[in-house]
């Protein structure tokens, strides 16, 4: 179940050229403020398709804040304000003509605590396609629901109880349901904010496996507080500290050979 470094390197190699070519998301000099407080200070980073990018760092360093600025979920916090430039396929997502609704359909998100809607499993998945008008018939919707659940590795477990409430599932199943819900609208990027921190080790392993399967199709950004997890699932790691991005690079490099003293301290458990 544990993926070893060599495997990752293989994956790396395959996507190398594509990645170098064109970043999916590209942030330049991004700062995020809550009121007067600067939570993110001048962060620049490129995120690529077919890579899993992990954000690590001590609690309160701004990982979630930065992640949420990538699909403008920060808009829901009245005091939050973003400076700098975040490009999705070269288009600034904070430009005034950008439609957040469409942005979020392209950049999906999975949260720390599984948050299925208190509706049936089927409706949980179908909700996104429905509001975006992705299915023109019942049959098509059925297909989307099945496909999404299958990709999220949940289909076998729930196919006989699609009408049950999504909240009746176990924690790990709920989180996979949320992932299935996110991929049902076929996004280009999936953001995950500590998706396993509320789960037990077995469910965590399931999700890590799933993330690895999914990266073939999406750009995935994952925030995690577990360095082991970052090492296991990601190909790129960014280390945040007190609102600054201290170091960003290949996961293998960061964990085996960090350039910065702070990164090293953190990884060896000196603080946090």
């Amino acid at each position, binding site marked *: 179940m544990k993926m070893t470094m060599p495997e990752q390197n293989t994956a790396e190699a395959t996507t190398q050229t594509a990645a170098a070519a064109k970043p999916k998301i590209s942030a330049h000099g991004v700062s995020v403020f809550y009121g007067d407080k600067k939570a993110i200070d001048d962060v620049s980073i490129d995120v690529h398709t077919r890579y899993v990018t992990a954000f690590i760092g001590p609690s309160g360093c701004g990982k979630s804040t930065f992640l949420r600025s990538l699909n403008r979920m920060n808009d829901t916090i009245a005091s939050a304000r973003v400076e700098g430039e975040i490009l999705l396929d070269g288009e600034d997502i904070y430009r005034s003509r950008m*439609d957040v*609704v469409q942005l979020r359909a392209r950049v999906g998100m999975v949260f720390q605590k599984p948050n299925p809607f208190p509706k049936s499993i089927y409706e949980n998945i179908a909700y996104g396609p429905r*509001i*975006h*008008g992705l299915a*023109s018939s019942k049959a098509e919707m059925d297909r989307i629901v099945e496909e999404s659940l299958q990709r999220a590795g949940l289909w076998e477990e729930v196919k006989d109880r699609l009408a049950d409430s999504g909240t009746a599932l176990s924690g790990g199943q709920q989180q996979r349901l949320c992932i299935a819900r996110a991929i049902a609208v076929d996004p280009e990027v999936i953001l995950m904010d500590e998706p396993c921190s509320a789960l037990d080790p077995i469910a965590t392993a399931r999700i890590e496996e799933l993330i690895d399967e999914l990266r073939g199709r999406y750009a995935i950004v994952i925030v995690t507080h577990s360095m082991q997890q970052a090492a296991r699932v990601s190909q790129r790691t960014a280390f945040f500290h007190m609102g600054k991005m201290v170091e960003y690079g290949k996961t293998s490099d960061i964990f085996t050979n960090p350039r910065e003293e702070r990164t090293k301290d953190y990884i060896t458990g000196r603080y946090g």
Partner: protein
Amino acid sequence: MSPAILVLLALGLGLAGWLAARSRAYAFGAKGAQRLHSLPSYHAWYVALWAFVPAILLALIWSAVSPQLVLQAMLSHPAADALPPFGLARNTVLGEAIAVARGDMQAVFDPRAQPLVEPARAALSRYGIIGLVVTLVAGFAGGAFAFLKLRPDFTARTRVERMIMGLLLLASLVAILTTFGILASLIFETARFFGMVNPIDFLFGTHWSPDPMRDPAYAAGEDYGALPLFWGTIYIGAIIAMIVAIPLGMGSAIYLTQYASPTLRRWLKPILEILAGVPTVVYGYFAALTVAPFIRDVAQGIGISSASSESALAAGLIMGVMIIPFVSSMADDSIAAVPAAMRDGSLAMGATQSETIRKVLVPAALPGIVAGVMLAVSRAIGETMIVVMAAGASANLTGNPLESMTTVTYQIVAMLTGEGSFDHPATLSAFALGMVLFAVTLALNFIALRVVKRYREAYE
């Protein structure tokens, strides 16, 4: 054309627009070339609203304007020369003719209206048709304008949602409108009243005996001293009722939150809530028929012969009972808002439960409880039916609870359902009393809500 038909017409146009836009949006989708920005139903609503709103607006405007036009048409008819000169009488005759022409009435009151019935009928149908056409045109124009804007990438959803937001904002403005409505309805009449009676006499005078039969010209200020009413209101609502409600309400809250088992609480809480749900007219009836005579009998039994059967005590006691659940739920909330750490801290010191409650929880919850009591007082002094039915009419400045006293609300009801005419200061005094009541309850609430808010924040 009656307004109802115009409204139906506007609704019909909206529906037509809805259907047309929906099928057009589906057509975009079917071509499949481009993904729709918004779901077809948003396109549908967009066009429907653009058809409906102009149509209904014009229909409303037309309903307001067309009667004037009809009137003009009637006046230009030769039969109108026989009408009385301007004034209410003339309007009445015209109104009758129109009513008969509309079919609202079988016959005219006034024979002078008869010759005008036919011209009215003609004008009504003429302007009715015009109204129909105008509404139709407006609806069509709006609908067509919107329909032509539809494209696959048209931001129909954003626009419809903006309209929904407008609707939500309007709904919340109703609260402000209501407040203004209350102020307006009180201020004008109050001003008229103070034109006749000096506000100082009213607020500080100690003699209240307005006589609605008296010629308003003689309205003497000294008959409108409302102090006894204020006193009665405070005595019944803020003193007697609170003497009942505060200890019993606090006691109930403490018992229910601190001592009762969950099962018992599940049963007792709704029972207390029933006490709050009993209509005041029932309390009034109970007070007047059962409690007041009982109190008088008891008082006379122990030799107090002056005891009134409309004693302030009866009204106050029952009002207190009515307020108990109110105080208890406010106290309940305040005590629950005290952090559990406070209670644990005290218990860990070896305090008994009652010591914890008396020395830690209640003092800590005190601001909230005080605010709750202020709200309860404001409710008690605004309470009407209990005092109307169980308190007396006599404005007594006395401290004897067995005597009859009257209150502000009692006098409002008495003055407005009494014998006076509407330009008499006695009747107008009801509005001035209402104004005072409004101002006082407003102030109490305002302060109480502030206190509660600040206090909640202190623990968050």
